[in-house]
């Protein structure tokens, strides 16, 4: 269940992790993309941090919406609208429920509507989909998240920039999957599920 405290904590931890892994994420994006995923996410989470500090939203919906708006307006590229849409859909649903399972499911649905990708196309969906399932089943842990991230390694990309390298995309972890992995490990750390 999301609360103002654990949601803020989650985003703070996620920001810190993204800033720490910025170069690694861009490196992942180099062989199969354009090498900017770390920069993109870093720019976005910095903006989220600043906006939350300034606006001090007092409810979960406000936090999620501010996060969505900052990601949408500061990231650009492919990951901006995807992460942004996910948070926007979660924000919308948060007036009805604060349960993590349905919220993440709404986020995933938003990502899929926005990007038209399916499971198995080597995108962040390959982390989001198993995570949503595991939350519903009550089985989510760090190992499950890491396995999902790793699973993208053997896939061939057919969406996004990585699709242009064709078979050469096999053997590399998808950068968006990796950043989504951080999103969910920090969610666990923030105690959102407990």
């Amino acid at each position, binding site marked *: 269940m999301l609360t103002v405290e654990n949601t803020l904590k989650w985003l703070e931890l996620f920001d810190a992790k993204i800033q720490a892994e910025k170069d690694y994420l861009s490196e992942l994006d180099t062989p199969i993309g*354009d*090498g*900017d995923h770390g*920069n*993109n996410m870093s720019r976005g989470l910095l903006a989220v941090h600043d906006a939350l500090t300034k606006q001090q939203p007092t409810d979960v919906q406000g936090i999620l919406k501010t996060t969505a708006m900052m990601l*949408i*307006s*500061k*990231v*650009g*590229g*492919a990951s*901006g*609208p*995807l992460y*942004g*849409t996910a948070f926007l859909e979660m924000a919308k649903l948060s007036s009805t429920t604060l349960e993590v399972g349905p919220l993440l499911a709404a986020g995933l649905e938003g990502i899929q509507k*926005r*990007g038209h990708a399916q499971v198995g196309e080597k995108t962040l969906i390959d982390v989001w989909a198993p995570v949503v399932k595991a939350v519903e089943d009550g089985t989510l842990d760090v190992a499950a998240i890491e396995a999902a991230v790793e699973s993208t390694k053997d896939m061939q990309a*057919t*969406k*996004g*920039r990585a*699709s*242009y*390298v*064709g078979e*050469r995309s096999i053997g590399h972890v998808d950068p968006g999957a990796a950043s989504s992995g951080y999103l969910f490990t920090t969610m666990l750390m923030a105690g959102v599920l407990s």
Partner: protein
Amino acid sequence: MKKIMNDPSQIVTEMVQGLVRSYPDQLKQIPGTEAVMKIADLKHRPQVGIVSGGGSGHEPTHAGFVGDGMLTAAVCGQVFTSPTPDQIYEAIKAADAGRGVFLVIKNYSGDVMNFEMAKDMAAMDDIDVRSIVVDDDIAVENSTYTQGRRGVAGTIFVHKILGAYARQGAGIEAIEELAHQITPNIKTIGVALSGATVPEVGKPGFELAPDEIEYGVGIHGEPGYRREKLQDSKHLATELVGKLKEAHHMTAGEHFAVMVNGLGATPLMEQYVFMNDVLDLLAAENVEVDFTKVGNYMTSLDMAGVSLTIMKLIEPGWVAKLDEPVTTIGW
């Protein structure tokens, strides 16, 4: 990396400032954005707004095509990164003169998603926003295997023809229909002699040996379909014309428009020599070339190389639209 710049993270902001300050009678910056629009009393002669944009690094695309008879506004993203929906949304609002706004989007996942989000935002304002996704780069396999073909230099023909019809007063439905008619007839393929260096990255996206070229490279340095030793211009022209001929199912007597586009660091001299070879090959096919254009239009920073765009002119009216004078910096 040797670049004339200050803080690389501010390069797009400074570029847009330099641009609008250089052409104050033609362009203005939309406040709070890195979008550029033409100076004109939109209320006075209301027309469908034509808006495009994308990552920066392709100058004069897109801002250089803003002006009477082409784009109403252009949105400049970070280098090789799609602009964000809020900026696109501002451009849509600024370009709307009550007759709707048409978006010309290059087929990259980021661009498509950001423009679609902006479209959703504008729909809430009751602006009639429609769009086309341009995917002229035949180097890429079709969308079963990839995100689909990329949008490259051929996009400029879309800007030109739609802009001409919009100026003439065509409605948004007509523009939309036309866009869907034109786009499948535009095909492009490129060859790179060197990679491009993104300012914030500081080293080329890929490296080629001193005697090596790569066919089919994308305008952000996406890998192409073959590397080989550099050969003469005739040889390069034969490869690229061959691919385009096949893609167009070219037959004698058909009419075409042809654009040789420099990727950034290739001198015009070489581009003219290349066009000379292209025109020889097309003459040998007994097709009619009704429109030709040579220069740096859709660049990839400092990449060396050229792309070749061939558009099939299935409607006799299109060439007049390509020929019409415009007041832009880049056309």
